[in-house]
């Protein structure tokens, strides 16, 4: 059984606590991505699941067994590292078979499993090569092959694609997804790249400063970020934010004395941040006045950078537009596409708050 249960897990180095009680339940076969900026604790959490870091508090269970004090080799996990960590003195075949040799499996079975993994990953021709004779993408595949042959209960990935160039990364990303669909093994995947997290995972866990900001299916996080941090972190180009004070029922007074009429009634006290995704802003005859600063067409869509007073907003328009730098435009957004956050706490404002 490949479930992973993380219960109020903490990590401290001496007096300094870096993970402040994280709880995540991962179902059998689920693909969970841990994502966040560097230093948020995502890699540390992964290494605690692997048994490479001690758990300072709380508990981690793999299957039905609490593994806090179980050594890495007995956790039935496989891990792929950012730098692949291939054994340089062994060829591809020996690298992939190493874990099985450690378990003293019969030679025939080792060979069969290695061949099967090599076939899945297209490594049959490279079995006798040493790691230094392989390209980056091939090394990456060998690292995955080494994990596959183990037939583990859980796969752990620590930024496995970040050493590859952009094109290869996209290719390996879809290969990884296909592999997961095929093998159906529980996977915990650490990345700082939100696109990777969004595209690969069944569920994304956004971490920040040693806590879980929010977790859920990728599109839920995109559609309903519970905090300013998640709103800013998920999505590219990032969400636009306008901060000010609510006046009356539906007007936001910005710091540069601009007032923005919102298409819904807002009943908030204190400072409020309005968040709108670039693709949810549209050009209209009436609305919030703005001036076009930069127009960047990519063919399928056009990104417009516009100035609203002292604020800069990005607008993503499907297809093409005749807007030119310097043009005066008006922007609108639908009420359901506008996110409201309490500026001080950073939390999402619910109706009536």
């Amino acid at each position: 059984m490949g479930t992973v249960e993380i219960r109020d897990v903490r990590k401290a180095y001496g007096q300094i606590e870096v993970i402040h009680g994280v709880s995540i339940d991962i179902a059998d076969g689920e693909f969970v991505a841990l994502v966040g900026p560097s230093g948020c604790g995502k890699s540390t959490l992964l290494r605690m699941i692997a048994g490479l870091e001690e758990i300072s508090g709380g508990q981690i269970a793999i299957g039905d067994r609490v593994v806090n004090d179980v050594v890495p080799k007995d956790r039935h996990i496989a891990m792929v590292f950012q730098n692949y960590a291939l054994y340089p003195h062994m060829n591809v075949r020996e690298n992939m078979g190493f874990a099985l040799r450690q378990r003293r499996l019969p030679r025939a079975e080792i060979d069969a499993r290695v061949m099967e993994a090599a076939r899945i990953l297209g490594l049959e021709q490279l079995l006798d090569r040493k790691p230094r004779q392989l390209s980056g993408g091939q090394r990456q595949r060998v690292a995955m092959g080494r994990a596959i042959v183990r037939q583990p209960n859980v796969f752990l990935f620590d930024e496995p694609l970040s050493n590859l160039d952009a094109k290869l990364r996209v290719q390996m990303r879809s290969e990884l997804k296909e592999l997961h669909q095929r093998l159906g093994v529980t996977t915990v995947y650490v990345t700082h790249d939100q696109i990777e997290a969004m595209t690969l995972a069944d569920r994304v866990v956004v971490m920040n400063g040693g806590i879980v900001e929010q977790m859920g299916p990728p599109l839920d996080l995109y559609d309903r970020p519970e905090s300013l941090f998640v709103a800013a972190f998920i999505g590219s180009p990032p969400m636009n934010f306008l901060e000010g004070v609510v006046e009356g029922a539906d007007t936001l007074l910005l710091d540069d004395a601009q007032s923005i009429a919102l298409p819904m009634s807002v009943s908030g006290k204190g400072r409020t941040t309005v968040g709108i995704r670039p693709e949810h802003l549209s050009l209209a005859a009436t609305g919030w006045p703005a001036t076009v600063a930069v127009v960047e067409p990519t063919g399928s869509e056009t990104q417009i950078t516009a100035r609203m007073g002292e604020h800069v907003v990005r607008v993503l328009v499907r297809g093409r537009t005749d807007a030119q730098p310097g043009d005066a435009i008006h922007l609108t957004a639908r009420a359901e596409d506008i996110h409201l956050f309490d500026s001080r706490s950073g939390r999402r404002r619910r109706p009536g708050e």
Partner: protein
Amino acid sequence: MTATALPAPLRRKSRLGPRIRIAAGVLACIVFLFPVFWMVLSSFKEQRDIFTTPPTLFFTPTLETYISYMQRADISRRLINTIIVAVGSGLLSIVAGAMAGYALARIKLRGAGTIGVLILLSRGVPPIALAVPMFLVARSLGVTDQHITLILAYCTFLIPYVMWLMRGFFLALPKELEESAMIDGCSRFGAFFKIIVPISLPGLLSTLIFSMILAWEELLFALVLTNRYASTIPVAIAGIAGDTVNGANWGALTAVGTITVIPVVIFALLVQKWLIQGLADGATKG
């Protein structure tokens, strides 16, 4: 395309570079090797030919000094002693030093850094200050003039040396290698012996060779701790050089010196591939 686009001065420079480097290399070789050459040359001269002015390059070579001294100063036994002690202390220190260096590089231990520095600082103590206490200890244990005594004495300076060299070597290895091995089913020791040691073989071997050479030419401890049975070649050389009764026998000195150098040279030639590889890189970029 890039080759033809290269500006002319760059191409000329690249042709000039190797010549300067070769010339510098030849010069350095002459400076370093001339004394050795002169020693070997003199060892085949008769005593009266050694100090002629100007020095003679052409003379009738003789093996007389070799033959007489090989018997007289017990050179062959001392040669065997030196081999035993150099190999013994080299092997012992590489095993202990490499493991200590690995621990310093990898194991999170409170005060590990301090321990490492203290061990390194122990090398700052002048050997002569240690030699006398060592002799007293050896005498009260009744182990003076024995191979094992000298081997252990040499380990006192070889282990810190190996430890620090190998620590640097291990630090350059990505720690994910062992972590991966530990997930793959190894203990910490298993990961060290199955992954780290094979990868570090060039480094281990070159460190071992340097340790053995250090032990091979060590004089002070050998002089103090041995007498006849376990005495080594450097002691014999010192004895000839410091012969206050008959005066230094320069012929004998050069002959014994040559005998001392030959095994080291042969050994270095045999393992030079490893030596260069070990010194040049960690050979680990996986």
